[in-house]
C-alpha cells in the first residue's frame, strides 16, 4: 500500500511515469461534450459500461422483484384460484398479481437480453480492448462507433418509456395502451403480441433500433480486425478474444437484419393488420417463431462467444502458460458461430413443426456441443501444469468453466427430443439458459472487467473484496439456479405467477439464492467504485503479452507511444514479475513488440 500513496504509475519497463494532465485518454480533454461527442473507442467503451450497467441494474431489479413475488406467492392456484396469500393479503386480486408478474418477467428478459447481455461484452470490453489488442489507434469507423452508442441509447429509451409507463399504470395512473408496459415475454410471440393491450409496438421498435447498434458494432469490429492488424500480426497470432469478437460480429451482421425485418413485420401486423402471422387471415404464427429464432438463436451465441474469448485470455494469462490448442479454440469460435445458424428449430420442438424437422434440428443442435467441449478441454489443458495465479479475474475464469459446463451439459437434455418434450417450458429450461447467460456470460463480463480494469482506469481493485464478491456471486448464483433444475424436473412450468405447495421449497431456496447473488453484485460494484482510491496500476499487472499490456495504464489518447509489432500473445516468458510495483516488466533491451527498442526513460 505504500505505492498507492505516491501519485506515480509505471510503464512496461517498470520505470515510474509522472502523470501529466492530458497524457491519458481519461484526462486528455475535459467537459461533458468531450465525452458525448468523443470518437475515442476507449471512451465510447466506458460510456457503454455506464449505460449497460444501468440497464443491468434495471433488469436485475425486475429479477429480484419477480423472485420476491414468487416468495410471497404461497397460495395454491388449483385449490383456490381467487386467493392471494402472503403479505399482500386480499388487497390485490389474483388477476392483478398475474399481470404484475407477466410484466416483471417480460421486462426482466427484454432489458437483460436486448440492453445488457448482447452489448455487454462486445460493446464494453470489445470497444475498449479490441483496438488495443490490435495495436491500433482506434476502430476502423469511429463515427459509426459513436452512432452505435446513440442507437443503443435511443432503443433503450423506447424500452424504458414502456417500462415506466407500465409502472405508472401499476400505481393507478391512466396510461395509453402503447405505453402500458409489456407482457409478451421477450420473444414477442404471435398471436399474443398482436392481441395484447401493452406496448408491443414501441418495444419492437426499441429492439429494432438496438439491433442497429449491434450491427454497427459488429461491422466496425470486422473491418477493424481485417484492416488494422499491426505489422507482425497474422490471423494466427491474434489474441483469441479477437477471434471470438470476429465470430460474434459475423453473427451480428448475418442474424440481426433478419430480426429487423421480423420486428418490422410485427409492427405492421400490429398497426395495420397485414395478417402474415395470423392464421385467421391466412398467415402463420409459427413463421414468426422461425423468423424470430433464426435471429435469436444465433443471438444466444452473440451473448456467449465474446465471453468465451475473454475466458481464453484470462485462463492463459493467469496460468502463466501458452494457451493450449490455439487453432482449435480459434476455429471452434467460428464453428459455434456457423452452427448457431442451423439450430434455431430446437426452440420449436413443441410448436407443431414436422417430426422430420424436429429430428434434424435435434441432431444439429447436439453438434454445437463439439466446439463448446473443445474450448473447455483446451482451457483445462492450458491450466494443466501451469503456474496458476488465483486472483479475482482467474476466479471468474474458473467459475466460468464450471458454470458453462453445467449450462452446456444440461443443454443436451433439451436438445434431445424425448427429454425436451418433458422439459419444455419448465424451470429446467430457465435454469439451463441462466447457467449459460448469467453463469457464463455475466461471469465472463465481470472477469473481463476485473482483468482489464487496471488498464481502463489505471487503478487496481481491492483483491480481498474482489474475491469476497466473487464468492458471493458464485454461491448465490448456484443457489438461485441449481435448484431450478430440480424444480423443472418436478414439473414446475416457467412463467407462472404461482405454484402448488409442493414447489414452495424450490422457490423459497431460489429466491434466497437470488438475494445472495444481489449482495455479491453490489460488493462487485462498490469494489469498482472504491477502486478510485485504490493502488495505481502498473502497465502490466497480470503479465499478459497481448498488446494492450504493452502500453501504459490507462493508455494514452492514441493508445501507444510507438507503432507496436504483433508478437505471440501467449508468450509470457519475457515478462518478469517485479515485487516493487506488483506487476510485470519487460527488459527494455528485449522488447519484441517495440521495433525501436526505445528506452527513453
Amino acid at each position, binding site marked *: 500500500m505504500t505505492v498507492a500513496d505516491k501519485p506515480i504509475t509505471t510503464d512496461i519497463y517498470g520505470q515510474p511515469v509522472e502523470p501529466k494532465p492530458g497524457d491519458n485518454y481519461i484526462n486528455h480533454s475535459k467537459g461533458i461534450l468531450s465525452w458525448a461527442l468523443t470518437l475515442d473507442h476507449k471512451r465510447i467503451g466506458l460510456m457503454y459500461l455506464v449505460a449497460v450497467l444501468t440497464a443491468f441494474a434495471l433488469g436485475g431489479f425486475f429479477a429480484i422483484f419477480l423472485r420476491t413475488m414468487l416468495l410471497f406467492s404461497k397460495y395454491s392456484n388449483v385449490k383456490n384460484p381467487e386467493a392471494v396469500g402472503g403479505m399482500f393479503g386480499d388487497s390485490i386480486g389474483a388477476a392483478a398479481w398475474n399481470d404484475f408478474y407477466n410484466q416483471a418477467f417480460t421486462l426482466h428478459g427484454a432489458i437483460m437480453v436486448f440492453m445488457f447481455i448482447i452489448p455487454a461484452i462486445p460493446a464494453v470490453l470489445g470497444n475498449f480492448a479490441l*483496438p488495443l489488442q490490435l495495436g*491500433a*489507434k*482506434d*476502430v*476502423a*469507423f*469511429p463515427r*459509426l462507433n459513436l452512432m452505435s452508442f446513440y442507437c443503443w441509447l435511443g432503443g433503450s429509451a423506447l424500452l424504458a418509456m414502456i417500462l415506466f409507463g407500465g409502472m405508472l399504470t401499476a400505481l393507478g395512473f391512466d396510461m395509453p395502451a402503447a405505453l402500458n408496459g409489456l407482457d409478451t415475454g421477450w420473444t414477442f410471440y404471435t*398471436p399474443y403480441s*398482436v*392481441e395484447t393491450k401493452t406496448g408491443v409496438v414501441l418495444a419492437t421498435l426499441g429492439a429494432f433500433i438496438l439491433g442497429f447498434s449491434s*450491427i454497427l458494432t459488429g*461491422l*466496425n469490429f*470486422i*473491418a477493424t480486425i*481485417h*484492416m*488494422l492488424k499491426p505489422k507482425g500480426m497474422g490471423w494466427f497470432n491474434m489474441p483469441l478474444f479477437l477471434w471470438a469478437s470476429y465470430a460474434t460480429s459475423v453473427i451480428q*451482421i*448475418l*442474424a*440481426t*437484419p*433478419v430480426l*429487423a*425485418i*421480423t420486428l*418490422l*413485420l410485427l409492427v*405492421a401486423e400490429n*398497426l*395495420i*393488420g*397485414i*395478417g*402474415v402471422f*395470423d*392464421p*385467421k*387471415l*391466412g*398467415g*402463420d404464427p409459427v*413463421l414468426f417463431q422461425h*423468423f424470430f429464432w433464426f435471429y435469436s438463436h444465433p443471438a444466444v451465441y452473440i451473448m456467449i462467444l465474446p465471453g468465451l474469448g475473454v475466458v481464453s485470455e484470462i485462463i492463459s494469462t493467469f496460468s502463466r502458460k501458452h494457451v493450449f490448442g490455439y487453432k482449435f479454440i480459434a476455429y471452434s469460435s467460428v464453428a459455434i458461430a456457423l452452427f448457431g445458424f442451423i439450430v434455431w428449430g430446437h426452440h420449436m420442438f413443441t410448436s407443431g413443426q414436422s417430426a422430420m424437422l424436429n429430428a434434424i434440428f435435434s441432431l444439429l443442435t447436439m453438434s454445437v456441443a463439439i466446439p463448446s467441449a473443445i474450448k473447455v478441454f483446451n482451457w483445462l489443458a492450458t491450466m494443466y501444469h501451469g503456474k496458476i495465479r488465483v486472483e479475482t479475474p482467474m476466479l471468474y475464469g474458473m467459475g466460468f468453466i464450471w458454470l458453462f459446463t453445467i449450462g452446456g451439459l444440461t443443454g443436451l437434455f433439451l436438445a434431445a427430443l424425448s427429454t425436451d418434450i418433458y422439459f419444455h417450458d419448465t424451470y429446467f429450461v430457465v435454469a439451463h439458459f441462466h447457467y449459460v447467460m448469467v453463469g457464463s456470460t455475466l461471469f465472463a463480463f465481470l472477469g473481463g472487467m476485473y482483468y482489464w480494469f487496471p488498464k481502463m482506469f489505471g487503478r487496481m481493485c481491492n483483491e480481498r473484496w474482489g474475491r469476497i464478491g466473487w464468492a458471493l456471486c458464485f454461491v448465490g448464483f448456484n443457489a438461485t439456479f441449481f435448484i431450478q433444475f430440480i424444480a423443472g424436473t418436478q414439473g414446475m412450468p416457467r412463467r407462472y405467477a404461482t405454484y402448488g405447495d409442493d414447489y414452495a421449497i424450490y422457490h423459497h431456496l431460489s429466491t434466497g439464492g437470488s438475494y445472495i447473488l444481489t449482495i455479491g453484485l453490489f460488493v462487485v460494484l462498490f469494489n469498482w467504485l472504491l477502486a478510485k482510491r485504490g493502488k495505481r496500476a502498473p502497465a502490466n499487472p497480470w503479465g499478459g503479452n497481448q498488446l494492450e499490456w504493452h502500453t501504459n495504464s490507462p493508455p494514452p489518447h*492514441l493508445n501507444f507511444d510507438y507503432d507496436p509489432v504483433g508478437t505471440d500473445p501467449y508468450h509470457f516468458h519475457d515478462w518478469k514479475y517485479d515485487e516493487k510495483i506488483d506487476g510485470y516488466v519487460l527488459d527494455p533491451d528485449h522488447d519484441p513488440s517495440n521495433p525501436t527498442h526505445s528506452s527513453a526513460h
Partner: protein
Amino acid sequence: MSDHDHDHDHPDYLAHHFDTPDQQFEAGKLGMWLFLVTEVLMFGGLFCLYALWRYNQPEVFVYAHGFLDWKLGATNTAILLASSFTMALAVRASQLGQKGVLVGMLAITLLGGFGFLGIKYVEYTSKFSHHLGPGKQNLYYPHALSQLPQGDLQGEPVLDDNDNPVMITRGMQLDEIAFVEFEVLALGHGYAPERPQATFDQYREAGVFGRLHGHHFEDAMELFSDLGVDVSGVVAAHAAHGGDGHGHGDSHGNEDAHTEEGDGHADEESHTEDEAHGESHAAVAHAEHDPAYDYNAELARVPVAGESASASKVTPPPFAGTQLVSDFAHDADEAHAPTVLETLGAPDLSHSGHYLPYAMQPEAVQRRVHLFFQIYYCATGLHAIHVIIGMGCITWVLAKSMAGAFTPEYNVPVDIVGLYWHIVDLIWIFLFPLLYLIH
C-alpha cells in the same frame, strides 16, 4: 481535427488511425460491403416470406399480380438500371477527377430516383383508389368490411330507420371485389375472364355492369360477346334505363349521370335482391349477407355529387369514408359456403392472359388474396424507403462534389454511395419479376 496535427504526412482526408489512404479506402469499402450483406439479409426475410406464401398458394399470386401494372414496373426497372449506370459513371468520373462529369452524373442519378418515386406514387394512388391498400385497408381482407358501418362520402355512418348504423355485408364486399376486379383486370389490364358465361352471370348479379360508365360499358359488352356470351339482355336493360338522362350511345357518357337514380339499374329486372345475391355468391354470404340489402337502392341513396369526374372509376359507396377495422377473433371458425369452384372444377393456370374471378376461387385462396398485397406493400414500401435514403446520400455526395471535395486520391464517399445505390437497384431487379411478372 487536432488529432492528426502531430503527423504532418497525413493528408486532411486521412483519418488519424489509418496509415495510408489505400488502407482507409479499403476499410470503407469493406464496411460498406458488410452493410450491404445486412441489407440482403433483411430483404431476405421478405423474400423468404414470399417464397413460402407463393409455394403454399400459387393461385393467389397468379390472380392478384394482375392488379399490378407491369408496364409501370418495367419503366421503373429501366429507370433504376439507367440511374445505376450513371452512378457508375459518376464513380468513374470521381476517380478521374472530372468534377463536371461527376456533378452531372450524380444529378441524373438523383433525377432517376425522383422518377422512380413518381411512378411509385402513381401506382400506389391508383391501388388506394381501388381499396387495394395495405393492411386492413385491403378490399380482400377477409371479413374486415363486414364488421363495419357503411359510410357516406363525408365519412358519416349510414343509419337505418331506427338510427342504428347500417353494416357493410360480406355480400357488398364481394360485389365491390367483383367490380374492382373486372375494372382493373379486364378493362384496365386486358385480361380475359375465364369461364365467360359464369363470370358474366356473376358480374351481372353483382351489379358490376350497372356501375360502369361511359365507354367502359360498351367495352365490357364487347369483351363478353367476343367470348361468346349473349349480352343482349343486359344491353337492352341498360339502354332502357340510360334513356332517362343520356344514351349510352354517347361514347363518353356524361359523368353527372351517376347522380341520377336511373344509372346503375341496367340489369334490374334480372336482379331482384333475394335471388340475385342468393345465386351469385351461391351461399357464400349465408351468414353475413343481409337479404334485405338492396344494392341498387344503396347506389341511389348515397350521393356522389361531389365526386369529380376523373376522381375514381369506382363508385364510392358503400365504402366511402369507411375505416376498415376488423375483429380478428370474430368468426374465425365460421363455416364457409362452398364456392362456385366446386361446380366448375379446378382453376386453369396454364395461360396467363386470363384470370379466374375471385368468386370462383377456392375458399382457401379467397382468404389469402390480401396476403399478396401485404407482401407487395411491405417489399416495395421498404424498398422505397431505401430509395429515399439513397437519394439523401446522393444529395450529400452531390453537394460535396460541387464543393470540389473529391479528388482522384480521395473519393471513398462516392464509391460507397454508389455501392448502396446499386444494391437498391439490385433488390428492385428481384422484386420486379417476383411481383409483376408471375405466370
